[in-house]
């Protein structure tokens, strides 16, 4: 008999990978350069200001500002990647190039496409995160074994943004929704999501709002790993919360995609 079947989701991920092979250098470069620019600008520029300010290190948990910002950068990079890759590309596969319609007439199903996309985002986020982590490991101030689990957490957060946004993209008739997602979800989270300064600096209402999306939870966990202060139970709680986002997004996206592909 034939060998064990490759799970449908991995067959879909294989397709993404083949398409990516043509573009990976450009992609990797940009998903590496951008966080490095932020790191230099914020870490070195803002950092020198923050670190000179007496008492700030206690707010930051006793680490330098650069060390504080690093996990934030890893996780926000994954967030934008997961979000971006789940907007126009999804619409293109349904409306323009219609790749998903091509898959719909093979034995694969909507579930395989959604899980394949999620796997792909996890992989992309991990690769992008790893590139940044390798650069960070070159400097004593940011070098840490904690970078490895932090990259894994970032990948998880990437997926937690990908599946819910995919659910929206699948049902979008026009790409107008995407600008809204960027302006009212991704960019505010980037600025107020706890990536670059403690949420405690913000008004309580904003703090609560910032804790609803998966970003802050991922940042807290990743920061625990890179700074060496891991609160295991809290970590478990945060990761469960992030996973709920992934699962809920995947379920809704699958249901909607099935309705689109198999009317």
């Amino acid at each position, binding site marked *: 008999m034939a060998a064990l079947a490759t799970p449908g989701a991995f*067959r879909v991920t*294989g397709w993404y990978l083949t398409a990516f092979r043509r573009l990976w250098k450009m992609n990797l470069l940009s998903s590496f350069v951008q966080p490095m620019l932020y790191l230099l600008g914020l870490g070195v520029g803002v950092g020198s200001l923050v670190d000179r300010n007496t008492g700030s290190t206690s707010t930051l948990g006793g680490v330098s500002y650069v060390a504080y910002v690093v996990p934030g950068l890893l996780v926000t990079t994954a967030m934008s990647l997961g979000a971006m890759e789940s907007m126009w590309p999804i619409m293109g596969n349904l409306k323009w*190039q*219609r790749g998903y319609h091509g*898959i719909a*007439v093979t034995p*694969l199903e909507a579930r395989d496409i959604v899980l394949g996309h999620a796997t792909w985002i996890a992989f992309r986020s991990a690769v992008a995160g790893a590139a940044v982590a390798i650069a960070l490991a070159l400097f004593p101030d940011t070098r840490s074994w904690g970078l490895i689990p932090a990259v894994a957490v970032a990948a998880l957060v990437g997926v937690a943004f990908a599946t819910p946004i995919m659910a929206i993209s699948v049902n979008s008739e026009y790409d107008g929704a995407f600008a809204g997602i960027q302006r009212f979800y991704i960019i505010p989270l980037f600025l107020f999501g706890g990536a670059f300064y403690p949420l405690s600096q913000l008004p309580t209402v904003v703090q609560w709002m910032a804790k609803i999306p998966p970003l802050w939870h991922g940042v807290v966990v990743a920061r625990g790993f890179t700074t060496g202060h891991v609160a295991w139970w809290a970590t478990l709680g945060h990761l469960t919360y992030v996973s709920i986002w992934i699962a809920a997004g995947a379920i809704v996206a699958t249901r909607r995609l099935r309705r689109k592909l198999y*009317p």
Partner: protein
Amino acid sequence: MSEPLIRAHHLVKKFGDFTAVDGIDVEVQPGEAFGFLGPNGAGKSSTMRMISCVSKPTDGTLRIFGLDPVTDGPKIRARIGVVPQLDTLDTELSVQENLWIYGRFFDLSRAECRRRTTELLDFAQLTERAESVVDDLSGGMKRRLSIARSLINEPSLLLLDEPTTGLDPQARHVLWDRLYRLKQQGVTLVLTTHYMDEAEQLCDRLVVMDQGRIVAEGSPRSLIEQYATREVLELRFAAGTNDQFADQLHGLGSRQEALPDRVLVYADDGEAALQEVHQRGMRPESALVRRASLEDVFLLLTGRTLAD
């Protein structure tokens, strides 16, 4: 007779209040080339999408290989090839990458994907373009690639929705030749078309669809014999006067049909009918005697042309 590959009974597809397919009965036998002929909006594509297991029937029963598409969709799709009306190729990838990837969707091993890709590239006459990006191909080449890709799982049933729409005549003939070869290899072909010449060339048997229903069924030859006369006399009169002459043509041949641009006279002997036209003192601007085609069958059955 063997079990039909496709068996549809009272098949219905509704979209809200609109009934796209209105209770059709169809059986397709293994090895047949079967066509759905009809104008745009006749329900051909909706029928095809139900057979491809992407669209659920609203009512009636549909069996493919004896399986129910609603519950066994993936199982059926593993054994069929689908060439959709709109290409779903990966335009940024190369020709051979498109084939490899598609094979992987069917869980073929990489080695097997490569082996079949080599064969299919040859079949589709695309071997020299194997490394070209799909974007750079002509319309006819893209269509051939779509067909090649649909064959990667070696299907016994190939479904083609409007396979040559939008192609130039030469590209259409190349495509027909490829499809004819598949038919000779024993692949069952089911296609939709609104080109009567395509249906005549490719189909052993076809149904004529109009407004969601089947209005006639048979081989192209038998449909023409049954519904049309052997020959057709086409007359063109001065613009705007066709209707007026239609009256004068009364009783000529077995039937007359006034179209906006010409008058058709259905007669077994077209030349004799033309002589009669001259004897009655009419002077058409042009006159042409031709054999009856499926287009005439459609016109006689529905009172409209396929292009309407």
